[in-house]
C-alpha cells in the first residue's frame, strides 16, 4: 500500500489517491433522463437529418472527410431532377424541421401545456426565489438554466405535492434580519393543514377542517409560486398566437420557454414550463423601479423529481411530543370551515348561496366545496380549554391535556358565511368563491392597473348583467376565507371579480381570461331549476333569473332566506353544450 506521506514519483501510480477519488459517488441519471433524451433525439432526427460532422467538436478529432470539389458537367435533365429532389426534401424534411424546435409558437405551447399533466401524479421540487436589484440587472438573455445567480431576499422551498391536493413544503426565508424556517403540510383527505416553524417552542398548529390555501397559516411564497404558474396559460392565450417560444431542456427535461412584455412594455417576464407536467420551472420578472434601477425577480426550480417515492403520511407535519422534557404545544384549531355536499353546505351557509359553474374547461372536476366564517359575526370560541361566547364563558370542556391547546369556533349558524369551491385538473386548480359584499365600491375601482385588466359584461348566470373585472397578472386580489379582514390580499394569478346585489364572486386560478368569463357566465345557484345552457363563449344566451336573493343581508343571522334554502331534491344545472374553441366543455358542477 502506498504511504500517503511518501507518494510515488509518477502521479499515475498514486493508486491510493485515485481510488479515493474514484470512490466519490456519481449520481445515477434521473428516471426521466432516457425518455427525455429519446424525445430530443427524435426531434433531432426529424429536424436535421443533417450530420454536422465530428469535426465540429475539435480539430484533434477525426471528422468527416471533406470531398474535394470536382467540377462536374451536369446535364440539364440531371439538374432538373436534382432541383425536384431538393424541393421534395425541402417540403418533406426541411419545412417540418423548421416548424419543429426553433419556431414553436405561443399557440403550440398553449395547446401542449393545456394537454399536459396526467402522466405524473406527484412531484418534488427544490425552488429558489429571490431578486436582483441594480442598474445593470437584466433577465437572462438566453434559455434559463437551473443555476441561480446571487440573490437577495432568498427563499428556498422544498415542495412535494400530488394531484390529489396533498402537499408538503419546507421553506427557508433569508431576508437579512429575517431568517425563518417553516414546515407546512396539507392532507386533502382529512382537510387538515399543519404548520410548524423551526423553533419547536412555537409549537405545531393543526388546523382542521382547513382549506388548502389558508394563507394565514401557510407561507405566501407557496401561493406566489402557484400564482405564477397559473398565469402562464393565461398569458399565452392573451399573446399573439404566432409569438415565437423556445423549445428547450431544463433539468434534463423537455420544456418550453416564453417571454411576455407587460401592458406598459417596460417590464418583462420569462417563464420555463415543464413539457410533461405543465409545471412552472423557472421565471424571471423584471421591471424598472422609481429610482431608475431594474429589479429582477428570479424563481428557479433547481431540482425536480417526478413521481418520487413517498413515505406514508409524507404530507403530515408531525405533532410534537409533549412528554419529552420541556412542555411543547400542539395547537388544534377549528376556525369553522365546513366541507360538504352542495346541499349540506347550503344549509349552513345560507343566506350566502352556493353558486357553482355549470361549465368548466375540459379535465377540471370539483374537488372541494366548503363554507367558512366570514365577517365579524361575534363568533364563539373554545380557547385555552374554556368555552366562550362573546364575553361569557359558556361551559368548560371535559378534561385538559398539558401540551394540547384547543381552539374551536362555535355557534357557526350565528356567523355569516362565504362559499368556496375548488376545481382540480392534475396540478392545476381554480376556485369559485361567493361571499357577502363588504362595500359598494364599483368593480371598476377594484384592481386597477393590474396586468391585462379589462372589464366584461357578464351575459349569463347568477351574475348576469354585472360588469366583471378580469386580470391575468399574478399580483394580488382580495382573499377572504377566515379572519374577517377584507383588506387581506394574497397573490393568486388570473382572476375575475364581479358583484351582484349583496354578493361578490371571485374566480381565480389556472384559467385563461376567456375561460374565467365562460365560467362566470355559467354560474348557477345550487337548487335552482336549470337555466338555458350557458355558452362558454360568453355570447348571448338568455339570462337565467336566479331565484336566490341577490340582496340577502349577511348580517347577524336572520331567519333563513327562502331563496337560499336548499330544495329537498336538488336539480343539477345543465352542462354547457358549446365549448370554447380552445377548450372542451366539461359538465362541471352543480349537482352533488
Amino acid at each position: 500500500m502506498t504511504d500517503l506521506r511518501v507518494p510515488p514519483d509518477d502521479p499515475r501510480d498514486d493508486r491510493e489517491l485515485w481510488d479515493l477519488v474514484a470512490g466519490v459517488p456519481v449520481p445515477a441519471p434521473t428516471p426521466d433522463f432516457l425518455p427525455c433524451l429519446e424525445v430530443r433525439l427524435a426531434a433531432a432526427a426529424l429536424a436535421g437529418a443533417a450530420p454536422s460532422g465530428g469535426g465540429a467538436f475539435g480539430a484533434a478529432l477525426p471528422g468527416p472527410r471533406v470531398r474535394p470539389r470536382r467540377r462536374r458537367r451536369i446535364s440539364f435533365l440531371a439538374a432538373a431532377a436534382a432541383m425536384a429532389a431538393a424541393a421534395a426534401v425541402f417540403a418533406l424534411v426541411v419545412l417540418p424541421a423548421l416548424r419543429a424546435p426553433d419556431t414553436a409558437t405561443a399557440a403550440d405551447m398553449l395547446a401542449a401545456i393545456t394537454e399536459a399533466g396526467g402522466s405524473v401524479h406527484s412531484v418534488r421540487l427544490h425552488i429558489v426565489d429571490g431578486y436582483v436589484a441594480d442598474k445593470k440587472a437584466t433577465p437572462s438573455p438566453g434559455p434559463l438554466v437551473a443555476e441561480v445567480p446571487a440573490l437577495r431576499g432568498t427563499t428556498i422551498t422544498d415542495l412535494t405535492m400530488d394531484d390529489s391536493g396533498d402537499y408538503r413544503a419546507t421553506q427557508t426565508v433569508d431576508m437579512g434580519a429575517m431568517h425563518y424556517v417553516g414546515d407546512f403540510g396539507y392532507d386533502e383527505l382529512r382537510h387538515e393543514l399543519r404548520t410548524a416553524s423551526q423553533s419547536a417552542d412555537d409549537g405545531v398548529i393543526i388546523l382542521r377542517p382547513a382549506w388548502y390555501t389558508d394563507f394565514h397559516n401557510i407561507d405566501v411564497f407557496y401561493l406566489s409560486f402557484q400564482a405564477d404558474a397559473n398565469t402562464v396559460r393565461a398569458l399565452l392565450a392573451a399573446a399573439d398566437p404566432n409569438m415565437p417560444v423556445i423549445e428547450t431542456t431544463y433539468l434534463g427535461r423537455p420544456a418550453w420557454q416564453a417571454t411576455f412584455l407587460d401592458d406598459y412594455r417596460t417590464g418583462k417576464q420569462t417563464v420555463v414550463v415543464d413539457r410533461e407536467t405543465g409545471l412552472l420551472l423557472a421565471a424571471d420578472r423584471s421591471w424598472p423601479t422609481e429610482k431608475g434601477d431594474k429589479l429582477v425577480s428570479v424563481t428557479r426550480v433547481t431540482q425536480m423529481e417526478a413521481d418520487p417515492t413517498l413515505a406514508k403520511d409524507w404530507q403530515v407535519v408531525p405533532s410534537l411530543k409533549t412528554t419529552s422534557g420541556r412542555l411543547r404545544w400542539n395547537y388544534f384549531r377549528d376556525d369553522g370551515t365546513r366541507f360538504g355536499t352542495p346541499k349540506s353546505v347550503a344549509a349552513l351557509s345560507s343566506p350566502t348561496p352556493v353558486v357553482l359553474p355549470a361549465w368548466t374547461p375540459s379535465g377540471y372536476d370539483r374537488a372541494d366545496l366548503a363554507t367558512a366564517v366570514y365577517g365579524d359575526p361575534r363568533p364563539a370560541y373554545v380557547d385555552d380549554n374554556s368555552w366562550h361566547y362573546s364575553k361569557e364563558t359558556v361551559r368548560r370542556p371535559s378534561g385538559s391535556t398539558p401540551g394540547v391547546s384547543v381552539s374551536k369556533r362555535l355557534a357557526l349558524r350565528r356567523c355569516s358565511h362565504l362559499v368556496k369551491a375548488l376545481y382540480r385538473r392534475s396540478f392545476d386548480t381554480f376556485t369559485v368563491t361567493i361571499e357577502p359584499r363588504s362595500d359598494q365600491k364599483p368593480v371598476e375601482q377594484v384592481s386597477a392597473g393590474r396586468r391585462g385588466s379589462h372589464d366584461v359584461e357578464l351575459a349569463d348566470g347568477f351574475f348576469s348583467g354585472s360588469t366583471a373585472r378580469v386580470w391575468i397578472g399574478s399580483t394580488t386580489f382580495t382573499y377572504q376565507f377566515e379572519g374577517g379582514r377584507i383588506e387581506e390580499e394574497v397573490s393568486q394569478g388570473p382572476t375575475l371579480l364581479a358583484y351582484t346585489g349583496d354578493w361578490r364572486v371571485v374566480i381565480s386560478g389556472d384559467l385563461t381570461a376567456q375561460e374565467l368569463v365562460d365560467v362566470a357566465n355559467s354560474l348557477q345557484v345550487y337548487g335552482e331549476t336549470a337555466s338555458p345552457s350557458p355558452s362558454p363563449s360568453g355570447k348571448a344566451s338568455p339570462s337565467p333569473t336566479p331565484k336566490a336573493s341577490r340582496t340577502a343581508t349577511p348580517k347577524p343571522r336572520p331567519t333563513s332566506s327562502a331563496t337560499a334554502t336548499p330544495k329537498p331534491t336538488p336539480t343539477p344545472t345543465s352542462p354547457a353544450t358549446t365549448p370554447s374553441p380552445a377548450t372542451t366543455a366539461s359538465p362541471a358542477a352543480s349537482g352533488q
Partner: protein
Amino acid sequence: VSDRGPQRGGELSEAELAAARSGDVHAFTALVERYDHRLRVLAFHLLADPYATDDALQDVYVKAFRALPGFAGRSSLGTWLTRITYTTCIDHLRRRSRLVPVPDLEPVDVLPEGPDPTDDLSDRRHVREALRQLPPEQRAVVVLVGVQGLDYERAAEILDVPIGTIASRLSTARRILRSTLRDDHAPLVAAASEEGSS
C-alpha cells in the same frame, strides 16, 4: 479501465454502430446506455451538480447523434464521445461562470427524526469537495488518467493539449489533493488507507 470499448455492456457491434450512425434512435440509445457511466463520471466531476450533469449529457448525446454519421473511426468511439463530453461541459461551465451555486438545504429541526438520505454520501463528501477545488482542466485529467486509467496520449487527444500538459496537470492536481486531504481530512485519509491495506 481501457479506453478501447464501452465500460458497461460489452463491445458495440458493427451492426449496432451502423444502426446508430444511420439515425436509428433506439440503436443510439443503446449506445448511450453503454457509454453513459464513464461520460457521467467525467461530466459530474466537471460540473459538480447532478442535474447540470444530466443537462450537459443530454446535449452531448444530441450532438453526438447528429455528428455520428460523419464519425470516421480514426479514434475510438469512446475517445470521441469523451471529447464531446469535455467540450460540452466546459461550455456549460463558461455559461454559468457568472452564477452562484445554491447551497444544500439543511434539514429542519421539526422534521421527523430518521436517517438522512445523504448519509451514505457524506463520508466521501470532503474528497469531492477537495476535487472541486481544482480547476476543471485538472479535474478532467484526474478523472481520465487517475480514475479511468487512460494513458497520457489519449488524454491529450481528448483534451486537445500536449502530452506534457497532461503530465503537468496531473502532477499539480495530485499535489493539491494530497495537501488538502492531509491538512483538512487526515482522519479520513488514514481510515481509507487502513481499509485499503486490510
